[in-house]
């Protein structure tokens, strides 16, 4: 498959957290910070939804485009170096990658299935990355999900309430998680994560 480069606007995207993040170490940082926080930006985020059950053709198109299967099991995701596809509901997924191309048009141009929708949510979601050996403890402060490393494995993801906000939490690596949140709440969430991380010591990148 050829990656066709679409024209992205040359104007720089301004994230919800632009100008709001002070980098440095904070809180109880006597030793190594327990938490690292950063914003992931700019991303392309596209939501795909199709019929029940999803048609073979449809799944194949996606697979061919990204070179891996669409995750069909709830609460899971699959990823390549660049792209992650996350289950977000029955026959619904988010496709996320760093913004380099017009993902929506690319996918739309390939799909033959008629019962489907594709919605660009690149600007609708903000994404915060959390890492560090206290990450799972931090997550437990905000979400009623069992984040035990033997239960919540790499590539698992959940949509849940996180510090009273609806969020999508995705495990990328042992202690590395991405959190997606509606853009308008991004700053609020950022502040909540900072407060909760204070006792562990944190570094914003």
């Amino acid at each position, binding site marked *: 498959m050829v990656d066709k480069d679409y024209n992205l606007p040359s104007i720089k995207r301004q994230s919800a957290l632009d100008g709001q993040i002070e980098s440095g170490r904070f809180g109880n940082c006597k030793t190594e910070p327990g938490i690292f926080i950063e914003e992931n930006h700019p991303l392309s985020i596209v939501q795909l939804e199709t019929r029940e059950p999803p048609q073979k053709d449809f799944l194949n198109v996606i697979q061919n485009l990204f070179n891996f299967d669409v995750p069909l099991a709830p609460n899971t995701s699959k990823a390549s170096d660049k792209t992650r596809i996350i289950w*977000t509901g*029955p026959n*619904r997924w988010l496709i996320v990658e760093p913004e380099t191309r017009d993902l929506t048009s690319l996918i739309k141009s390939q799909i033959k299935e008629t019962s489907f929708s594709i919605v660009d949510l690149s600007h609708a979601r903000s994404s915060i990355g959390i890492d560090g050996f206290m990450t799972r403890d931090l997550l437990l402060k905000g979400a*009623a999900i069992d984040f035990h490393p033997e239960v919540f494995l790499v590539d698992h993801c*959940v*949509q*849940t*309430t996180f510090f009273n906000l609806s969020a999508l939490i995705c495990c990328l690596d042992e202690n590395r998680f991405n959190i997606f949140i509606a853009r308008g709440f991004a700053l609020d969430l950022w502040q909540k994560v900072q407060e909760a991380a204070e006792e562990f010591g944190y570094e914003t990148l």
Partner: protein
Amino acid sequence: MIRIKCPYCGLRDHSEFNYIGDATKLRPINPELANDDEWFDYIYIRDNPRGVHQEYWQHISGCRSYVKVLRDTVTHEVLKTGLPSDDLLFSYEAEK
């Protein structure tokens, strides 16, 4: 906290859901033909049982599905969950 099993997402706190209410209330299939009593019944009247209640919850912070839940209104125990098309009461009685 009531723990509700979303048929998709699994066991979750009820605070992830919006309570919708009685799931036995069916909107008249042919709205034109239904008489006033049927409409009145659909919109206002409730069985309001003391015991097993079939109800909807929307998994609002999760997959956004409407989940049918069979729950005991006295103990709050969740007996069964399923999709809107499932008749949980029937299968619950049958299993009993």
